[in-house]
């Protein structure tokens, strides 16, 4: 069973210039960052790479649409390990990711303890990304539950891959989010790149669309083309608006690409047979006369230089001291 490549065509009014230029800038920033992380890995400046090149259209949109802040009045993000573009769109500096790659003591997400792409930023409600697949889906209803009680329009957003939906935790998320006793303001996202490491989705998914699994629970669901920046933005906007207002769950599946394979364990080489959302974006910008090729190249050069400089800086920073293993087993908060 194979799936239609494009499930949904964008038929809405195009996004305005300013937003598109902003999105493009962030997408380039994210792509350049990931490519730099891959380079670092290949040069021996890190042990493992995993990240989100190919998901920038969707992930940037998500970051731009989130309500950033700390506590239940703001949005929570329970993300997996391909979400760098969302962090950047929220305003995060790329150097943090580089530091985590190099596992320096300055790594703001884990102090040199965790793999690349494993973000955590409590001050913006970014829940820690953890390696075990799908556990975030079991946790996310908890933040949504507090938000529901708190009032306001803060929502919980949880993301993960297609293969991982086979874990029971994905079902738990659907069950807990749609309880008639307390439906939750949660946007449940699946980024479907049609792979789990080396395993093609075709043989593993009896569902036509992963999103269909929400239907039995009376949830709104949709499967979208996450490679199209405008579709991604507009569909996310609609889904988020629904959850914010109705305080009810929405299951959104975005078809996306995996442009450098699964991770460094599979070589982290560019694949040529998948749609590249950045190319889609740039063609559109050019077609519509919003940016020229030269302008776009300049954006890439700017980010390449800036991030290369940050990488140089990160490379010189020290590793955490051995005795720091004993720090933070328990909270120092009182």
């Amino acid at each position, binding site marked *: 069973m194979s799936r239609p490549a494009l499930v949904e065509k964008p038929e809405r009014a195009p996004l305005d210039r300013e937003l598109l230029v902003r999105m493009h800038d962030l997408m380039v920033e994210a792509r350049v960052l990931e490519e730099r992380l891959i380079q670092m890995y290949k040069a021996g400046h890190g042990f493992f790479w995993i990240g989100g090149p190919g998901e920038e259209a969707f992930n940037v949109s998500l970051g731009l649409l989130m309500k950033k802040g700390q*506590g*239940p009045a703001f949005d*929570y993000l*329970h993300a997996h390990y391909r979400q760098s573009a969302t962090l950047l769109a929220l305003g995060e500096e790329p150097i943090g990711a580089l530091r985590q790659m190099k596992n320096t003591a300055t*790594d703001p*997400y*884990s*102090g040199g*303890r*965790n793999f690349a792409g*494993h973000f*955590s*930023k*409590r001050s913006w409600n970014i*829940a*820690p990304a*953890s390696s*075990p697949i799908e*556990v975030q*889906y*079991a*946790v*996310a*209803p*908890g*933040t*949504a*539950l*507090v*938000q529901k*009680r708190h009032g306001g329009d803060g929502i*919980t957003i949880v993301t993960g891959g297609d293969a991982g939906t086979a874990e*029971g*935790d994905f079902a*738990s998320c659907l*069950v*807990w989010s749609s*309880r008639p*006793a*307390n439906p939750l303001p949660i946007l449940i996202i699946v980024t479907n790149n049609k792979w789990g490491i080396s395993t093609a989705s075709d043989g593993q998914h009896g569902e036509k669309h992963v999103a269909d699994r929400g239907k039995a629970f009376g949830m709104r669901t949709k499967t979208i083309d996450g490679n199209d920046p405008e579709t991604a933005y507009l569909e996310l906007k609609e889904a988020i608006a629904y959850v914010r207002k109705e305080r009810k769950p929405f299951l959104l599946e975005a078809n996306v690409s995996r442009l450098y394979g699964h991770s460094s364990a599979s070589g982290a080489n560019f694949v040529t047979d998948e749609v590249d959302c950045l190319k889609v974006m740039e063609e559109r910008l050019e077609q519509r006369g919003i940016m020229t090729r030269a302008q776009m190249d300049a954006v890439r050069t700017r980010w390449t230089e800036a991030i290369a400089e940050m990488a140089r800086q990160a490379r010189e920073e020290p590793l955490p001291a051995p005795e720091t293993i004993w*720090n*933070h*087993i*328990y*909270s*120092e*908060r*009182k």
Partner: protein
Amino acid sequence: MANMAQAIRMALHYAEENLGVTDIFGEDVGPPLGGVFTVTQGLKTTWNSPLDERGIIGVAMGIAMAGGRPVAEIQFCDYVYNTIDLLKLAGNTCWSTHGDWNLPMVVKTPVGSGIRGSIYHSHSFDATMTHIPGWKVVIPSNPLDAYGLMISACREQDPVMYLEPKALLRIKGEERIPGEPDDDRLLSKMIDAPLGDRSKWKAQWPELQAYEVPIGKGKIVRPGSQVTVVSYGRTLPLCAKAAETLAAEGIDAEVIDLRSLWPYDWEMIRASVEKTGKVLYVNEDTEVTNFGEHLIRRTVDELFYHLNAAPKLLAGKFLPGIGLADTLEMASVPQLGDILDAIRKLAAEQP
């Protein structure tokens, strides 16, 4: 006096009122039942969850992340074993994020044998739980400690596993909970849900007072000079009783109720073993890769030259389950007779 179920219930009421507890939840925790052991009857923040232990632990973590203070229940610890990854995750979240996130959450779950619970209502959880870093782990053996440990647990900034020895939940205490009325029947009338229709019932809470049993502090239940006996949970009262019995035989055993398994009161154990030179650890978890073995390791590690005899462990047999028939349960986990024998033997040992 209150029994342990009532004591925990009162502590949870205190914690709802004074310590910011926002959600007491789990399977059958809310009305009408209020918990299969009645522990959560009449509380104001209880609710019934789906039958999904992974969801229960996950949602507790999420609530803690968003500023709530959950007390989540796993109905029997026998059903916690599909959540060990989540317990590990809860325990490593602070460390993995270099201190960015912490999870103030309590998980409570009944443990142990003693109610003819057969294979799946008799498990112990102390061995598995003490192997999971980042948690604090407590287990009371009487109502007052149960009250004080729950209050301490609800004040922590990190995950606390609160183990309820199910055989002791219905047993009344010998000390009064601060604030509980003098009359047990009055207490029951006030806070035990009635039989039949409960839809209009509301608990009448006594004026409870704060009382903390600090996490990490044991208690000398009976001082003695010849043998140290360290236990917790269901087997603790049996150890105390054994020591009493043996006093008549001229064996003077010191009995320590560990109360907290992590962190635990090593100073108390050390002082006692330095005095007695002999120590028996008693618990009812299966005996291979058992927490008592950790305590023995630490004992030989630090007190080897104080020992007059090999430190001993009396624990559950290494069996796939505890059988339903009385004959089987009695043969599988330590009973009074086993404890008496073990203490006698240790006391008699000549170096």
